């Protein structure tokens, strides 16, 4: 009897040792001892200490899981990251994983230097279903060729001054751009204006034009054809520029405002609406004089000049960060394991609690749906639409912004020169089409 039990015990013991690598939750069975993964993320100036602590936390967790270390590197601005990507692609050495803004994912894809995720790879990440379906919209040109793994969600919304609206008898922000203009006019008196818009920002302008065009049915780029010269886009520019020039619902100084100035103006209580901000503005606004007196709402979805939405009712561009894995990495499976860790429900929830960035993991996102303060933001995320997935998109974007930049001198004088605007749009159309013609 004793002999059998010893054999049985030894067998059980051996069986336990044999499967020891698989029975810890989240353990991948990978041995990464002595290996290091390099990850490139954006430097966080609002929470620098927390970011450093997070780096250490991830390193410790991943080491416990796989034995491999994680070294984080930061970049200051997306342009710096683009340059870093170029040098890495050129030389075949650099970070293993990049945290990439969604609008830059198409350009990264075009270089062909990032891992296209096959079914196998998605399995290693926990499956596509682990992610909110809307966040996968800018991972690749189509479902079979995806490089981006959604990491954080940062949809755009509109902040509004609850006191000013209450005083004017408006109970909630408009759902159409035309109605918003009416409300803004009501709210413009003295040195307070209805809207705070950053005309001189390098990014904001195109997002407005894109939203209004897409809502009216013009996606701007389709099948390698640019359609900036569509009448609905002209209307979009006229509306956007008209807010300052003819409608006078924006502070005239806004011709020189970058995003920071628009936020500061709203924060000083001098504007009623602040469109095109994300949840990260919360930190800034909570330190301003409108703390406690503002709320978020989704931006209008009915295009200017219309009463319903013929196109896509996009509340925002699909915005946030994707994680991409470089093809030149020597530790592909380890990299995928790290991405899985970063997009796991627990990590995503803790990341949200520390940095305020919305999760892309479906389970974590569901938990936040019940938070009333977040409702408009989550709503915007679900109704966000991806910008065209084309390697030439950054040039199209530049062309869109250029129309605004070159219109600013005239804007300052309170004029909206139709002929000049049409010429600028035509130039932009040409530039965009040329770039698209070169795309593969």
């Amino acid at each position, binding site marked *: 009897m004793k002999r059998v039990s010893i054999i049985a015990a030894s067998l059980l013991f051996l069986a336990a040792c044999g499967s020891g690598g698989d029975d810890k939750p989240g353990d991948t069975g990978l041995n990464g001892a002595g290996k290091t993964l390099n990850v490139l993320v954006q430097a966080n100036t609002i929470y*620098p200490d927390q970011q450093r602590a997070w780096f250490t936390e991830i390193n410790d967790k991943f080491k416990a899981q796989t034995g491999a270390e994680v070294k984080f590197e930061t970049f200051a601005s997306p342009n710096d990251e683009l*340059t870093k990507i170029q040098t890495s692609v050129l030389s075949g050495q650099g970070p293993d994983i990049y945290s990439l803004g969604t609008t830059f994912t198409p350009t990264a894809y075009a270089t062909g230097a990032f891992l296209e995720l096959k079914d196998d790879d998605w399995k290693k990440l926990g499956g596509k279903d682990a992610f909110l379906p809307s966040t996968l919209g800018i991972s690749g040109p189509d479902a079979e060729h995806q490089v981006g793994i959604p990491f954080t969600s940062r949809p755009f919304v509109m902040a509004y001054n609850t006191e000013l609206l209450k005083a004017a008898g408006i109970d909630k922000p408009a759902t159409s751009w035309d109605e918003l203009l009416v409300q803004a006019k009501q709210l413009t008196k003295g040195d307070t204006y209805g809207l705070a818009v950053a005309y001189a920002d390098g990014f904001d302008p195109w997002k407005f034009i894109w939203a209004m065009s897409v809502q009216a049915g013009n996606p701007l780029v389709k099948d390698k054809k640019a359609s900036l010269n569509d009448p609905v886009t002209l209307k979009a520019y006229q509306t956007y520029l008209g807010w300052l020039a003819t409608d006078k619902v924006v502070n005239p100084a806004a011709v020189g405002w970058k995003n*920071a100035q628009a*936020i500061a*103006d709203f924060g*000083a209580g001098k504007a009623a609406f602040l469109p095109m901000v994300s949840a990260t503005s919360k930190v800034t606004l909570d330190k301003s004089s409108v703390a406690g007196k503002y709320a978020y709402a989704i931006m209008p979805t009915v295009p200017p000049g219309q009463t319903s939405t013929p196109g896509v009712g996009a509340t925002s561009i699909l915005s946030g960060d994707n994680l991409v894995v470089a093809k030149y990495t020597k530790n592909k499976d380890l990299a995928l394991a790290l991405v899985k860790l970063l997009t796991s429900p627990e990590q995503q929830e803790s990341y949200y609690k520390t940095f305020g960035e919305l999760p892309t993991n479906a389970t974590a996102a569901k938990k936040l749906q019940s938070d009333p303060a977040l409702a408009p933001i989550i709503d915007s995320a679900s109704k966000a639409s991806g910008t065209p997935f084309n390697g030439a998109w950054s040039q199209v974007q530049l062309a869109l912004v250029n129309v605004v930049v070159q219109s600013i001198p005239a804007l300052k004088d309170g004029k909206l020169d139709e002929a000049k605007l049409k010429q600028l749009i035509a130039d932009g159309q040409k530039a965009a089409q040329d770039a698209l013609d070169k795309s593969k």
Partner: protein
Amino acid sequence: MRTDVQRLLPRSVQAVVIAVLLVFVLTPVLYMLFASVNDDLAVARGAFWPKSLHLDNYSKIWSTVDLGAGLGNSVVVAGSVAVVSALVAVATAYVLVRFQFLGRGLILRGLLALQSIPGTLMLLPVFVLFANLSAVLGVQVIGTRWALFVTYLTFALPFSTWVMVTYLRGLPAELDEAARLDGASSWRILRSIIIPLSWPGLVVASIFAFLLGWNDVLFASVMTNPDSRTVAVALQVFGATQEGGAIPVYGQLMASALICALPVVVLYLVFQRFLVGGLTAGGVK
């Protein structure tokens, strides 16, 4: 009186010039000083006078980015570039000025032409060069301070050399001819005569080389890793905005910019007394 003989401008003119220039130079610096202790939102709105004092910006900058390490790296890299480029420049200039040989004019013109090459053109090719060097030598080149040192040194050489060429041309040839008659070697002449006499030129050449290494962002941002990051790259982080939300931390940006300008200004404060006047008449004997 010696000083009267050397006077170049009458006192009144001198005073006016200095006053005007100080106002011109220091007004924006004053703005920076005020902004460094002001509230970020107020600075974004264009305030000049601080409404509230935020002196903690000066302590926050050290933890928002690793400014201390960045300063250390920058001092090491820029400092060595300054010293080495000044020495190489004076040696090269000495040869170019005192000796006649074929191709001398070509080299001089070529050095000046090299100054016209924009950095943006060179970034990717230089990076590729170092990456290939890594592969050939088997050691990591990109991300080390050596790579930066070599790059900055090379970029600083054309101008430094030209500064020394121009300066050395002003030194009378009799000095080193006399030494050569005494049997001194070129090295000896360089060390004992040329270098001591060309301090003003050396100061300018070193400042230029130092600032090249101190302020360059383009090359440093791609050729460093977190350990070898220079202060210029670290400073970039302060100016960054998070798309759609966070504003630049203006206060910290201004504070760190002032702090980073300090070492160079202090160094110049120390070395500017080497911009001594005139050659002593006794030297020719």
